């Protein structure tokens, strides 16, 4: 049941990305191109997603458990450190160069061609690199 809900959510997310136009890297890069031909579409996508979610979080806050029994995820510890800021800066740089963030890169994997496939494989590589760096730090700290 949980897997079925996850699959439905993933499918709806993918369809939303497709409908919103965020699967077009040129449109995403247009949003970042504040000094050129700026395209504000992404603000409508983000607004359309964030505003209803404010209400959803209010509903979630009134219940301790989700419908299938898992706890509602607690607010993460509010650590604002170099990892958060540095990581977000690296992510923003990659996002700008390709016009892809993780969701749209995955959603278009079926037809984005060699460039899209290379991006996703390299993204997985970057995630493995992160894991290797964490391990190395743990070894050095021990």
């Amino acid at each position, binding site marked *: 049941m949980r897997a079925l809900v996850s699959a*439905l959510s993933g499918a709806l997310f993918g369809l939303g990305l497709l409908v919103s136009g965020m699967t077009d890297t040129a449109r995403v890069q247009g949003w970042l191109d504040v000094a050129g031909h700026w395209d504000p579409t992404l603000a409508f996508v983000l607004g359309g997603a964030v505003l209803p979610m404010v209400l959803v979080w209010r509903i979630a806050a009134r219940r301790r458990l989700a419908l299938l029994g898992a706890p509602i995820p607690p607010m993460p510890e509010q650590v604002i450190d170099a990892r958060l800021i540095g990581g977000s800066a690296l992510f923003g740089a990659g996002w700008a160069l*390709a016009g892809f*963030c993780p969701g749209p890169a995955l959603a278009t994997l079926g037809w984005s061609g060699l460039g899209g496939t290379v991006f996703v494989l390299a993204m997985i590589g970057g995630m493995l690199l992160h894991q290797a760096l964490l391990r190395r730090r743990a070894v050095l700290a021990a």
Partner: protein
Amino acid sequence: MLWNHIPQAWAYGLAGGLMIAAAAALLLLVNGRILGASGILGGVVDGTGAGNLGERLAFLAGLIGLPAAAVAVTGAPAVHASHDLVLMALAGGLVGLGTRMANGCTSGHGVCGMSRFSARSIVATLVYLAAGMVVFFLARHLLGVI
């Protein structure tokens, strides 16, 4: 009608955004999980999500499968993915490393975190937006590499 004056792309953006919210609401209220594309994939890649691997794979199957099936029927809209494979490898690597360091991307921090007023997510979103705009400016207008 006001609607007639809104560019079509903005209306589609809003409609797609609402669908993204519905997807995030479904995952949160039914499964008790946060919809974050980099977190869901990252947990599969580095093994930290081994405890709920099935859910993660199901989400990814839906995310990759339904758009692929939809465009097989409607025709594929342009992705405009760059053919510069070195650039795409560099960009993908930065996105993978950066989102794991920061624990989230546009969906996890931008949609789910900002909407619960998480300061971490608001800072992350402002930083990747600013970095994206600066790097785009440098790469497109100054260096001309994209």
